């Protein structure tokens, strides 16, 4: 009897009212689920802060250094080419050039292809092996105050003849994530 009355009452309730009750219920359910999740998986901000205070002085110092470098790198325009000693693109000062070089790890395909042009054998191997390279590196040479990039072109399957191409890293491109070598001059 009670069930019948209730179901009759429910049927008579306006659709809009039922919908808003449902919406309130859904909202409450979402918030409650998230609160329950917080009990089990929520992190404590205090722990994070206190852990950070016990970091060694050395780390803090190294952070300072990297911060200054980070500042230089972040001051570079994103998406435009940065050159040292060139009339094209944005000019890097010697200190910027050093900072960018030391913090650049990625050698772009464009830089690789550009550097290959002067080395026929390297270019041939690069195309034959399906554009595969192995190790690559970007190094700062403090004696000559120049930035050098090098990479190894992988040998063809079943052979071991790799070719190492190296040259001066002249142009850099800053993306949203990192800084990349864009020009390698090897002639």
């Amino acid at each position: 009897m009670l069930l019948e009355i209730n179901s009759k009452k429910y049927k008579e309730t306006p659709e809009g009212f039922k919908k808003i009750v449902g919406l309130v219920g859904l909202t409450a359910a979402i918030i409650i689920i998230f609160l329950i999740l917080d009990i089990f998986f929520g992190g404590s901000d205090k722990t994070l802060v206190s852990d950070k205070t016990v970091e060694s002085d050395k780390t803090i110092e190294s952070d300072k250094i990297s911060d200054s470098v980070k500042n230089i790198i972040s001051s570079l325009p994103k998406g435009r080419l940065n050159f040292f000693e060139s009339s094209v693109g944005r000019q890097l000062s010697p200190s910027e050039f050093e900072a960018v070089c030391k913090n650049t790890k990625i050698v772009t395909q464009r830089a690789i292809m550009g550097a290959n042009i002067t080395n026929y054998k390297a270019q041939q191997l690069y195309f034959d092996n399906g554009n595969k390279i192995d190790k690559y590196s970007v190094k700062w040479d403090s004696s000559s105050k120049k930035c050098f990039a090098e990479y190894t072109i992988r040998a063809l399957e079943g052979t071991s003849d790799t070719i190492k191409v190296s040259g001066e890293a002249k142009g850099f491109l800053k993306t949203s994530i990192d800084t990349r070598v864009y020009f390698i001059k090897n002639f």
Partner: protein
Amino acid sequence: MEILKKYPKSIQWLFLLIVFFTLCNTIDIPEGYKFIRAQAEHIKDPNQVAYSFLGVEVRYYPYDTLWRLPPFIAWLPIWLNDSMDFLLNDWIPIEIYDAEIQEYETRPLILQITRIISASILFLIQAFREILIGGVETVVAFTSWDWIDANPWAELPGLPWTIVAAAAIILGYKLNGKGLAIFSAITMIYISVFGQWEPSMQTLSFVMVAAPISFLLGMVLGIWAYRRKRVEAILNPILNVMQTMPHYAYLVPIMVLFGIGDHAGAIATIIFATPPMVRLTLLGLRKVSPEVIEAGKMSGCNDFQLLFKVLIPTARRDILIGVNQVIMQCLAMAVIASFIGAKGLGWNLLLALNQLRIGLALEAGVCISLIAVLLDKMSLAWANKQTDYFANLTFFQRNKFGLFFVGSVILGLILAYVGSIMFKQGFNYFYEVPHNKGISTEAFWNAGVDWVWDTFFHSLKIFNTWLIVEVLQPMRAIYLRMPIVATFVLVMGAGYIIGGIRSALVVGGFTLFIALSPWWDRALVTAYMATFGVIVSVIIGTIVGSLCAQHNYSTKIIIAICDILQTFPSFVYLIPVMMLFGVTDTSVLIAVIIYATIPATRYTVEGLRSVPSALHDAGSMSGVTRLQRLFKIEYPLAFPHIMLGINQTVVFALFMVIIGAMIGTEDLGQYILKALSDAKGGGKGLILGLCVAFIGLAVDNLIRTWAEKRKKHLGIA
């Protein structure tokens, strides 16, 4: 209670927004939280929390779960990667005879299968390529290098460009008369004169392999789904995900399984191009009237005959529209596939963009666009062409195009021979205009770019800065500032108001997947960029569409423009914006807006034009003004259709945002691009692709449900 009865939806939305903003204002950003950082880190830090699942250890920084959820599916990409690694390198080793070293060697089954597929596809591409531009490898495949050295005459010479051009012109004329023949001629001459013949033929050979395979695969799956409801039920969600996954996301797992090169690009293209073929086959077969099927059965057809003699011929037009879509998808992938080594125009375009040689990129871009428009027009003309089976024709009338082609082959060969005598010292321009030896407008366009930069640098910079500082950054900050619980309340609440609890759960499921991945912040950035693009595109598209829909002539013109613009591969849109705005976020957003405005405009025009003329007359008789008719009659009736256009706009915008990662954005696309250069990026690329697809599917679910309800409400469903 009265207000609730009168404005039920408004009250629900108001309640939802109040809860959403309250949550946003009460939940603070946790101390030390760094935005735009993948939650799961590979570096070890004492502040991190770790968990292990299926042998994968995940480390992450824990925060208040009301703010951000822990990355509970961060193990999935790593596990997927390990699984792929295991399948490729260790699963079911089998003994394979290697003819080159004349020995048996052990190789895992999957690796062997992928190698066979790769080799077969590569062989086909190579064969088509060598027919078009010459080479020896196809002949070597059946003989040996020693044999070809001894018999150099057996080398495939390639077809002179004049013969291919003549074939395209004859085909264009046969399919659609003079207009298409002239367009074919312009396209072929442009390609040749601008020295783009070789890369164009490389791209064409790629399409000639990928398109038929996609067609066959799509048709078989479509027929299977037509005959088995269960297959359709399984295929439907898979196709939905595949059609909303960004192009890049296909590349990463393909690269892991098949390596890089033309074959890998072709496989990615086949996977990308198959879904529209499946859908159009299914649609075509569904449209066959029961009377036709009944007539077939009454004539004594068995299942096989019914399918091939009745159903497929009746559904011919839709199936051929599917072929058109497959070709378009193949060309759209031509540039993107070059990321994994597919050669051709796409590769040249990519290289030119990488070198910031806008003029060169523009030449290659125009070339791809011309080929895309030509193939689009040809395949559509083929789909619409009716064969007259009862015509009484003479031998010449029946075979004139074949005879013209034979004549053009002979003429082309004579010309090539004459060319070899005329151009003895240099290149035989009657045979092929070599790459970089044709006309080039690069210097002109580059000078144009320099002029634009010199002349408008300050204005563009002011606009750029204003857009970034005043519009984009605040919008981005608002998105990133949203606590996760507030996002869930908003998204699921919207789902509930629009489509009830089922819709809320579906949308919530998609959002949960992204929330549990390590890339929630980046997904928010993707969403913000797509939202900005969609808002601007919808405003422009609706205004332009509404204005053009007022007259028959302008309607025809705008639909034709939309048709042409939709055939351009998405990458081509990046070229003009890079010319104007350089490599910036603004360029990406403007490319998104241009690309996404097309469906918004098209659907607005189609929606407004689909309003029955009787209603226009009824409005006019009631004395409404033109503006009143537009706002009170046409817009309300066209709104469901316009909303479907907005749905398409969202998908287009998401695709372009992801492609824009190539010129530097901070969204999911950037990580997908990074996964491409990561040896262990297969799983990551796939999950990132799913995240993008799920954003699209969540919006798709909301808009489709709303549009269907609205159509029912208006009685136009």
